[in-house]
């Protein structure tokens, strides 16, 4: 549907209540795959491996090969389940999901069906204005990722028009945890942002657990967004669509918003929604229909006969629970209180994705106010100008050093910004840039007094005003002195000296 045919978002919200559900796949960063001892390309050591160099007979489904469960993948899955507030199953088993597609050579995916490792959790999700939503988790189950197909011969690299496809099974068998929410009600106009904030929270949890690299652009974290609408006052849920291929946080928000507007336009005209998967197109900001959603029955799930049940001991679960890091939402509350920021100041930091940078800068010795000022101010400005992340420009240690130089009076804010540019340009640490560029504040009064005397002599009318008690007139002299000193002076000190010199003469 062209964007012009969509219903206005606010109007859609007046007529319908949006209900969303999210499926997030997290690739675990174990050294080896889920069921085979082949190296795992989702582990940093094996990024960008050549095609079919990370495969064993199990990954290729060769006759006679048998899967064996990676114990570390199970532990990481349990940790993730616990961090999602889930109950861990007393007994859990794998199941075969049968389908024919060459991304898995066995013609089935080993997944979990009726006995997932974790179920019934809840995640606190904070949106940009600071409000918190509780997202109910239905289940988190273990499964294997599929291989990658490259379509050859089509004009666009898509399957339409392709002559043939090339298959790389490096990714086949990468350990995945699929996290499925229950329907999320009550988000209303915030539904698109809640969806984005939820996936962002899952990333934060995965990173804090150290179980995944959790980079969406690498496919470590993938999201399918279910959206349905129900007319105001209706109890029954509407028919849902599942939008796939949503590969950035911003796209999640846009895709959910688009589906709400698209479905509302259809329903308002008396049409009906087709239950189907839809593909998100980043370039046009639209979705297009994919295949009709198969019934679960068509996958003919059955218990995986080649694998034994996973029965985590209470001791293991408690050991992993005790090792859980602080939940992202709790950490935010703690940091906000420790730093003494206002709601707005804290949202500035959090929405800029700069919590870790600010925390590390404070740990390196800066005050919370200085750390926040540099990261959300100058560094964010420079990052926006260069279309990159503030975190990629400077390290927390460098920012803390810069703040210390300002505190010590070695640098003014203005000089510090020049030093920061030098640091970003790779000229060394802040102190090294100060030394190399000769940027320190002139703290010796001698040159300052010389410049002041010169300026006073050049502007006798100003001198007369200062002597008459009109001290605000000193501003003109400060400006002249700062210019003469090329900005390398502390304006407050200059002002003090001007008043002294004016009185002395």
């Amino acid at each position: 549907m062209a964007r012009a045919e969509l219903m206005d978002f606010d109007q859609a919200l007046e007529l319908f209540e949006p209900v969303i559900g999210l499926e997030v796949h997290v690739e675990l960063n174990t050294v080896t795959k889920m069921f085979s001892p082949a190296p795992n390309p989702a582990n940093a050591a094996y990024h960008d491996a050549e095609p079919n160099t990370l495969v064993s007979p199990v990954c290729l489904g060769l006759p006679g090969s048998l899967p064996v469960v990676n114990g570390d993948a199970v532990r990481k899955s349990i940790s993730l389940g616990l961090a999602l507030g889930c109950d861990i199953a007393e007994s859990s088993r794998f199941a075969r999901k049968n389908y024919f597609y060459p991304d898995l050579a066995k013609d089935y995916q080993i997944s979990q069906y009726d006995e997932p490792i974790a179920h019934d959790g809840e995640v606190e999700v904070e949106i940009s204005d600071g409000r918190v939503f509780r997202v109910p988790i239905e289940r988190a189950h273990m499964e294997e990722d599929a291989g990658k197909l490259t379509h050859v011969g089509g004009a666009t690299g898509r399957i339409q028009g392709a002559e043939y496809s090339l298959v790389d099974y490096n990714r086949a068998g990468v350990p995945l945890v699929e996290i499925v929410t229950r329907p999320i009600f009550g988000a209303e106009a915030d539904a698109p942002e809640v969806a984005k904030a939820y996936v962002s929270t899952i990333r934060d949890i995965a990173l804090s657990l150290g179980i995944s690299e959790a980079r969406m652009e690498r496919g470590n974290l993938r999201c399918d967004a279910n959206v349905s609408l129900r007319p105001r006052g209706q109890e029954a849920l509407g028919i849902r669509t599942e939008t796939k291929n949503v590969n950035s946080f911003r796209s999640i928000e846009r895709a959910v918003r688009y589906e709400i507007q698209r479905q509302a336009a259809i329903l308002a005209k008396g049409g009906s929604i087709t239950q189907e998967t839809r593909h998100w197109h980043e370039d046009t900001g639209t979705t297009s229909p994919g295949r009709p959603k198969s019934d679960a029955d068509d996958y003919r799930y059955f218990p995986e006969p080649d694998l034994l049940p996973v029965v985590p001991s209470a001791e293991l679960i408690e050991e992993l629970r005790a090792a859980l890091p602080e939940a992202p939402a709790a950490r935010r509350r703690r940091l906000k209180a420790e730093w003494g920021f206002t709601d707005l100041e804290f949202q500035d930091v959090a929405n800029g994705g700069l919590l870790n940078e600010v925390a590390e800068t404070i740990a390196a010795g800066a005050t919370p106010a200085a750390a926040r000022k540099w990261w959300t101010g100058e560094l964010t400005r420079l990052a926006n100008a260069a279309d990159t992340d503030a975190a990629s420009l400077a390290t927390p240690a460098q920012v803390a050093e810069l703040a210390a130089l300002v505190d010590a009076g070695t640098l003014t804010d203005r000089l510090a910004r020049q030093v920061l540019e030098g640091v970003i340009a790779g000229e060394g640490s802040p102190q090294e840039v100060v030394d190399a560029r000769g940027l320190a504040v002139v703290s010796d009064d001698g040159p300052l007094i010389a410049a002041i005397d010169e300026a006073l002599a050049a502007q006798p009318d100003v001198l007369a005003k200062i002597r008459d008690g009109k001290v605000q007139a000193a501003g003109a002299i400060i400006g002249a002195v700062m210019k003469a000193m090329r900005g390398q002076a502390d304006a407050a000190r200059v002002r003090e000296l001007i008043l002294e010199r004016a009185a002395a003469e």
Partner: protein
Amino acid sequence: MSDITAEQVAHLANLARIALTDDEVTSLTKELGQIMHAVEQVSEVATPDVPATSHPIPMQNVFRDDVVGATLTPAEAVAGAPEHDGARFKVSAILGEEQ
């Protein structure tokens, strides 16, 4: 006796990518019905104190350590493939979509 319809048999055959003639659908519908009836007899004798099992051996928690083992070279990997480009498997593109 459980009913299984000719439509269900045709649908299953399609999911399994098995081409069946109408005669085969008719005969398989009858045979599968008999098999389901046999399975039903098992249900009759199953009691709540006999837990369902997916495995004949009472074992659980068989894990391996997260340590890299033997892998194949790309040439070995594609050795049995009808078509390949030296490192990747070559498959027909008339395939519908990913699951």
